[in-house]
């Protein structure tokens, strides 16, 4: 099922060069090193107001409970597993910004401004006790936050072969 690559020309010439004007609006991804973070900033105080208005209906007041799951660490009921949330399971804080920006609020994805996303990120980190409530989150400060779960993450160590892993 693999094409004999010897017979391929170096280039076919299909497609058009992509200009910055085409790339920039799509290139919204944010990496752990901060690459991709936009200008702007936000705080937990502002985030709390936005969260109550746009998020709490699905994720609960203060990010706990709600029909679509908690976002903040809580103590599990006896015999229950700990819910995996930002505070205890997410290895990078930049992911909070990236994901909210692309996918939330669920019913209106892509509707938030950069300031709003910074503020919501600050709010959720604060609620998870990972950020001081006075802190200003921006492209410089956000990548510096070290998440408690980061040290737990290991890349796949499974190998082909008989071992069960």
């Amino acid at each position: 099922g693999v094409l004999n690559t010897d017979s391929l020309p170096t280039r076919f010439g299909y497609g058009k060069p992509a200009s910055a004007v085409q790339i920039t609006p799509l290139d919204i991804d944010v990496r752990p090193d901060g690459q991709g973070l936009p200008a702007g900033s936000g705080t937990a105080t502002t985030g709390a107001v936005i969260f109550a208005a746009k998020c709490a209906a699905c994720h609960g007041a203060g990010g706990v409970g709600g029909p679509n799951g908690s976002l903040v660490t809580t103590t599990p009921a006896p015999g229950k597993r700990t819910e995996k949330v930002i505070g205890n399971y997410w290895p990078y804080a930049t992911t909070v910004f990236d994901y909210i920006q692309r996918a939330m609020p669920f019913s209106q994805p892509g509707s938030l401004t950069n300031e709003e996303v910074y503020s919501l990120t600050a709010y959720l980190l604060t609620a998870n006790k990972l950020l001081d409530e006075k802190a200003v989150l921006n492209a410089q400060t956000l990548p510096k936050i070290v998440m408690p779960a980061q040290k737990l993450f290991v890349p796949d160590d499974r190998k082909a072969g008989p071992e069960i892993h």
Partner: protein
Amino acid sequence: VAVVQTSFAKGLQISIPQVPDDPTKQMGVPPGKVGTRSAFEKLAKNASDISSRSPLQDLYGTITPSDLHFERHHNGVPAIDPAKYELLIHGQVERPTVFTLADLKRFPSVSRIAFLECSGNFRTGKETMSPQEICGLTSQSEWTGVLLSTLFREVGVKPSSSWFLAEGGDAALMTRSIPTSKGWNDAIIAYAQNGEALRPEQGYPVRLFLPGWEGNTSVKWLRRLELGDAPWQTREETSKYSEGIKGGKIRQFSFDIDARSIITFPAYPVQIQKGWIEIRGLAWSGRGKVSRVEVSTDAGKTWKLAELQEPILDKAHVRFRHLWQWNGSETEIMSRVTDETGYVQPTFAQLIDARGADTGGYHFNPITVWQIKPDGRVLNRPENFR
């Protein structure tokens, strides 16, 4: 439409198609532009808000009918106009390029029959569970598209690139980080499935298809590939699609689908009769070809080789079959696959033993055990994480 009384459906209103008493005595329906499914065949996926499961117990052979291919979306199926569709490739490339659908179809194409499985494909907990409920997030198609390596050459992917980001054009803007080596190796930018354009639920008009890898990485409605030198750590590869392993660690970027098999007949909800029974099922491995499938009809005490339907394809569902004469005694039946790397499908207990009780449902591929009751009922044997 009629009202019927049966032991299963009391007073249920169901539709019974009208058929003539003797179809040989009246003219049939003339040939049409598009074929039909018999009104007697009530095939359906099992749909929730976020996924829809293939009815494995109702399927034959290895190809999944496209409209019964499992679904897993993170914010539904987008409606995309193929004339407006574009794929952007940028980042660590010589020539950032935008391809239309027509552009993609002009490149050299490849087809391959391969399975696609969601790595979250495991459910247990009760006896009255069908293969669809336990394991319905796997399906198989003949995929056609352009090798990603062909596009990598076209745009001049730089040797510095070790990871790329694949982004979907759905309302979740689904993103996954993929090692660039997979792109060079066997990744397909797929635009067709089982002979026709991709179905909307499978990524129309274009998806990434990564043979043998967990389904979520085969990003649907693909709109963008960014070549980079480190993973992005997106929500789907951190918060989700990662699994707890021993020592409190969390395994990430576990892409390969471990070998798995399941008996799809006899299985709940069928009731069997004494005599010869052909045990039938599916087996597959994300690491290569299926080498053998063994079947036990005595609760795991002894195992016999099942017949494998040829051709046995790389990273593809294989149909296995094994003849068994049931004498009416209570027993348990199960199958286990071995792939060409020597991996033998584990039991639930072996998996918990290897990963610890804190592991979740991702990449959970245990042997499925069916209890055979003396009256012929076939029930799932539920397993418990703790």
